[in-house]
């Protein structure tokens, strides 16, 4: 274990330096460096298997980082530094840190045995110990915000994909996170439903939420993104302002990837 502490990066929302991650002999992340400032929207693009999802999952410690520095709001993820040593955090402490990081998945992952409102209420009640009445009221406000006030009592299998993903966003927002991670939130959607989810995300960005978005929606990256990162084979190949990177990619790999997807 050669994870080192982050001390001088208290201001960044996310700070990654030389992040490595392997699954057995498969070396997936090979030294990822990136920085996200508060209220910034960072979009990540890259070919399939380049490690985008893995990197996002490392941020909230769904995957353990093998080496490098990874901190969120100046605090290490999944570890604690005491003196010069690193200590792995207990399940309960990791869980507490995760409450500050919202995550939205490609396949929604709504809880099918709970209604939309119960999906949104679950974590505030179980994790934060909010009263059911308070949580229910806030859940309805959040569902209203994503345009689903009338679907509060629907079960996930009674909702369209776009509606499910909007509930999933409301569910993540219910914990009042300081950072939101989106892993290809629109890739499982029919084209006509992509817009409604992107609209919600644009609103969120406009309100100043710090966001990391793995996406293939170049239009969203161009308009809503503050920064764009191209990942390939486990490293950040190119980073910059979205318009600049999309219009004038400097690296060969970025050029060939963009020529295929644009």
């Amino acid at each position: 274990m050669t994870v080192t502490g982050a001390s001088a990066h208290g201001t960044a929302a996310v700070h990654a330096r030389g992040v490595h991650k392997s699954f057995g002999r498969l070396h997936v992340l090979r030294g990822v460096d990136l920085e996200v400032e508060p209220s910034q929207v960072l979009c990540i693009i890259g070919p399939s298997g380049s490690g985008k999802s893995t990197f996002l999952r490392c941020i909230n410690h769904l995957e353990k980082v093998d080496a490098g520095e990874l901190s969120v709001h100046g605090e290490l993820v999944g570890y604690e530094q005491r003196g010069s040593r690193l200590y792995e955090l207990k399940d309960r402490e990791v869980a507490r840190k995760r409450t500050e990081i919202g995550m939205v998945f490609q396949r929604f992952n709504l809880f099918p045995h709970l209604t939309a409102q119960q999906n949104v209420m679950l974590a505030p009640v179980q994790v934060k110990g909010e009263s059911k009445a308070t949580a229910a009221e806030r859940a309805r406000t959040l569902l209203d915000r994503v345009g689903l006030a009338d679907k509060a009592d629907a079960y996930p299998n009674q909702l369209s994909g776009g509606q499910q993903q909007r509930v999933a966003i409301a569910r993540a927002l219910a914990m009042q996170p300081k950072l939101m991670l989106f892993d290809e939130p629109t890739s499982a959607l029919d084209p006509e439903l992509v817009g409604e989810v992107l609209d919600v995300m644009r609103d969120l960005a406009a309100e100043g939420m710090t966001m990391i978005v793995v996406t293939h929606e170049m239009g969203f990256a161009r308009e809503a993104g503050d920064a764009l990162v191209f990942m390939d084979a486990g490293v950040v190949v190119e980073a910059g302002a979205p318009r600049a990177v999309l219009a004038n990619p400097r690296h060969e790999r970025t050029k060939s990837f963009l020529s295929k997807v644009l």
Partner: protein
Amino acid sequence: MKHRAARPGTHVSADASAPGGPAALEAVPVRHRGRWVAALAVLLVAAMAARSMAVNPRFQWDVVGQYLFDRAILTGLERTLELTVIAMVIGVVLGVVLAVMRLSPNPVVAGGSWVYVWFFRGTPVLVQLLFWNFLSALYPRLSLGVPFGPTLVSGSATALITTWTAAILGLGLNEAAYMAEIVRAGILSVDEGQAEAAQALGLTRLQVLRHIVLPQAMRVIIPPTGNETISMLKTTSLVSVIGYAELLYAAQIIYSRTYQTIPLLIAAAIWYLVATSVLTVGQYHLERRFGRGSSRNQAATMVQRLRASFAGRNGRGAGATGSGGAGAGGVGGVGAARAEEHR
């Protein structure tokens, strides 16, 4: 992400009955002559069997009737039901614990669970019952205390291990091994994304299990657990070999005195049938209830299927789409395979 997730909620359906829509289809339903013929054949065989049983005097139906509500038989029935309930409660609770242990990241904990299941599934329940019954010979004194330290309570094993405790231990601990596998299958059936989403929200591992994984696993766990309960009700009859007067042993006590073996066995069998029938109905309703949120079509009742089948519509289609059907067909096999394995 190259494939799209299946999205419920968008299926194309032409709603023929909508007012102002196209006229409803008018068609003469298919007549199922084969079904009528097959049904008649089955009824005929059943009638023949019933008649032969009714007219054969050696069945001694009058004696059956006389003992059906006999005090000793009813007490035996009560004990059978009690054994079933207690053994299943032990089985389910311990089974959940063993299943969670088995999925633990700690290899010693997981291994312990594996060894338990290996041992209790690998030996016949009858042997286990006898073993518990004769435990007093192995450990004449049982004591409770600090491991390798001082003893707190101690007593004679013969006093502690009555035939009742031996029966409960034998049946309950054995059942736990089977329930552990059923619960494990249930837990594994829940999509990993569910636990991930819950963890990402800040739930601890235990909270994820309790609020997200186990409720969803129920759908897969309930049908085979119903089978296990029905199976357990019958397995309790094995306890007769250690001399605990449950239903079968109660009947045996009487016929060893009166030599009316067949009628008493029939009386016992009737009660077993009544009890398993009640349980089957209960299981059916549990399956319907726990299918909620997983399938839009609830399983049709037997009567609905009969009506549909003979009214010319496809009865199987109506009955087989229910959620319970899938669960019972898949993991329910665990229960069925088990019954053959050691009973």
